[in-house]
C-alpha cells in the first residue's frame, strides 16, 4: 500500500543509520584489540550505503505511464574492511610486540569514529523528523470529512 510505503522509506534509513552506529561502536570497542582470529590486529569496519530502488509495483506503474516513481529509501550495501596501515607503537613489554619492540594497533582513529557517530546520530534525527511529519499528515488525512 502506497501510504504505508511512506513509512518504509524513513524506516529503512533508521535501520541503516543504526547499523552505522553499531559498527562505529564496534570500532571504538576494538580500538585496542591487538589479536583477532586471523592473527592480525582488529581492522576498522566501514558501512557502505546504497539507494534502494523503487519497488516492482512502483516501477510497473511508471512503465504504464504513471510518470512518477518515488524511491524505496536506503539500504546497507555492505560492511567493508578498511585496509589502511596499522598504527605502530613502541612498547617492548607488550606480549604482541615484534622483535624491534613495536606493537601493531588497529587502524581505528577514535576522533574520526566519534565524528562518524555524530553524523549517524544527526542523520537518524533527520529521518525521525521526516517520519513524524509523515505520521502527522496521515492523521490529518483521517480528519477529512469529519
Amino acid at each position, binding site marked *: 500500500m502506497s501510504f504505508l510505503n511512506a513509512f518504509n522509506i524513513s524506516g529503512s534509513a533508521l535501520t541503516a543509520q543504526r547499523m552505522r552506529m553499531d559498527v562505529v561502536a564496534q570500532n571504538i570497542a576494538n580500538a585496542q584489540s591487538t589479536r583477532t582470529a586471523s592473527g592480525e590486529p582488529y581492522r576498522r569496519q566501514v558501512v557502505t550505503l546504497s539507494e534502494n530502488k523503487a519497488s516492482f509495483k512502483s516501477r510497473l506503474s511508471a512503465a504504464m505511464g504513471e510518470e512518477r516513481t518515488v524511491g524505496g*529509501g536506503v539500504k546497507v550495501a555492505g560492511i567493508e574492511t578498511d585496509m589502511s596501515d596499522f598504527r605502530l607503537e613502541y612498547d617492548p613489554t607488550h606480549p604482541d610486540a615484534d622483535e624491534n619492540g613495536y606493537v601493531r594497533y588497529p587502524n581505528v582513529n577514535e576522533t574520526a569514529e566519534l565524528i562518524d557517530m555524530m553524523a549517524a546520530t544527526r542523520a537518524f534525527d533527520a529521518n525521525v523528523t521526516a517520519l513524524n*511529519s509523515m505520521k502527522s499528515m496521515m492523521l490529518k488525512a483521517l480528519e477529512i470529512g469529519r
Partner: protein
Amino acid sequence: MIRDLFSSTKYIEKGLDASWTRNQVISNNIANAETPNFKSSRVEFEDAFRRALNADENSFETKKTRPQHRDFSSTPDLDSVRATVVKNDESSMRMDGNNVDIDKENVELAKNTFYYYTLVAKLNSEFTKLRSAIREGR
C-alpha cells in the same frame, strides 16, 4: 449544477496528492542524505497547475486546416495536470557525488506539511458548506 458540486474539491484533491508524493520524495532524499552518488528528486505540480489555470489568458487559437496540425499553446488541460517527480542530476554537493541539501530538505518538509494541513482544512470547509446547504442552513 450537481456535476459542479465537487469541482472545487477535485482540485484540492490534486493538491493533496501532490503534497503526499512530495513528502515521500523528501523522505527519500533525507533517507539517502549519506548515500554516495545519490541524486535528489523533487515534485513539480504548482507551476503546471498555475499554467493550466491561466491557460485562457495566455493561449491563443491556432488556425488548423489539417487534423495533424498542432496547437501552439501547449498548456495542458486543468484536469490532466499531475504531480511529476523530477530528478536533479546536474549538481553535486559533496565529493562523493551526493547532492542532497539536508537543510533545504528539512525546510521543504516543514513547508509541505503545512501545505497539506491547509489543504485538508480547505477541503473540510468545502464539505461543511455542502453539509450546511444539504441541511438548509440548519
